[in-house]
């Protein structure tokens, strides 16, 4: 049996309804916020705020609904790996498109 397994056995943790309700409400608030923000004139900040709120909501879901907060290092690492690779795809592709606008040299 490998380290991770032992690790998990010690840490198996049941999240109660209380937490879920709080997160649920937080998510509703977040939704309201982001809709409201989108009606304001904030120029370049509009997308940033929208994405910031979305990310905050996503984080809440991942941490609590998906129990990552209470799960093993391995799971955390997996989540991180996903985000990391996604970032490579996006950033390195965009790097080409953005630098194309600079013209040749």
């Amino acid at each position, binding site marked *: 049996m490998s380290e991770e397994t032992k690790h998990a056995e010690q840490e198996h943790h049941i999240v109660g309804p209380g937490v*879920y309700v709080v997160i649920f409400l937080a998510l509703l608030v977040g939704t309201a916020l982001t809709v409201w923000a*989108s009606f304001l004139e904030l120029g370049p900040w509009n997308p940033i705020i929208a994405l910031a709120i979305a990310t905050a909501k996503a984080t809440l879901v991942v941490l609590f609904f998906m129990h990552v907060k209470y799960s093993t290092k391995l799971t955390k690492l997996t989540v991180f790996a*996903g985000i990391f690779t996604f970032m490579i795809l996006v950033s390195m592709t965009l790097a080409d498109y953005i630098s194309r606008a600079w013209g040749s040299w």
Partner: protein
Amino acid sequence: MPDNSAIAHGAQESVSAANNANGANSAHPEHPPYLRHHFESVEQQADTTNFAMWLFLLTEVMFFGGLFTAYLIYRNWYYPAFVAGSHQLNVIWGTLNTVVLIGSSFTMAMGVWCAETRRRRGLVLSLSLTFVLGLCFLGIKSIEYHEKWEKHHVPGAHYSLQSFVDPQSDPEVFKEYHDKALMPDMARHTEIYFSLYFAMTGMHALHMIIGIGILAFMIYRARAGAYTSGHVTFVENFGLYWHFVDIIWIYLFALLYLISRHQ
């Protein structure tokens, strides 16, 4: 197998050790029916399937990743077209759908809790609620799709630029946002916006449909008490999937509906 003598010797110890370990924090020290032959312990099995589920979600992230990349590029190129396109989406429906989906995520989470604490009726109830909310989401989405179809905003042969080159022709959207008419060349690019809109929401809806199918199956099993006897892995892992679909939607909502709503 004389080769194995040494290994065998050490093995018995470790196996027995493993069993003690299980006995300590598992309700089923002897093998429960749902423990597959190739695992040593319930924990190992639960852990393994859970990790597998996470890896699967990893592939899902990259699957949608391609779409998000395309979205970001074209949004930077054709911002006005994307704004005009997003104004065509009904923010009320969108918000409602977000609430519905978050709600279903909540009920799903409750379902997992019920399974973990062995509340059979609670589990059936929350799974059913999740099921219904999922259907609501798809219903609302289909209403939106229908709207797009009628306005000829579905990319392809029937696509029409009418509402973008001549916003007044589309009064209810116009009175809200007073969009300026787009130049024809920019208006053409709204088709890319809607291509991405349908590709992304379509892929998402597909995941919802699959999820709902599995939910139906789970409700059926749950009523027989399949998940409330200690074997909660399946419910937990499906929960992960369902929450992931929720997360995708949280981003789709922000990116497709809320690009810029101010007038």
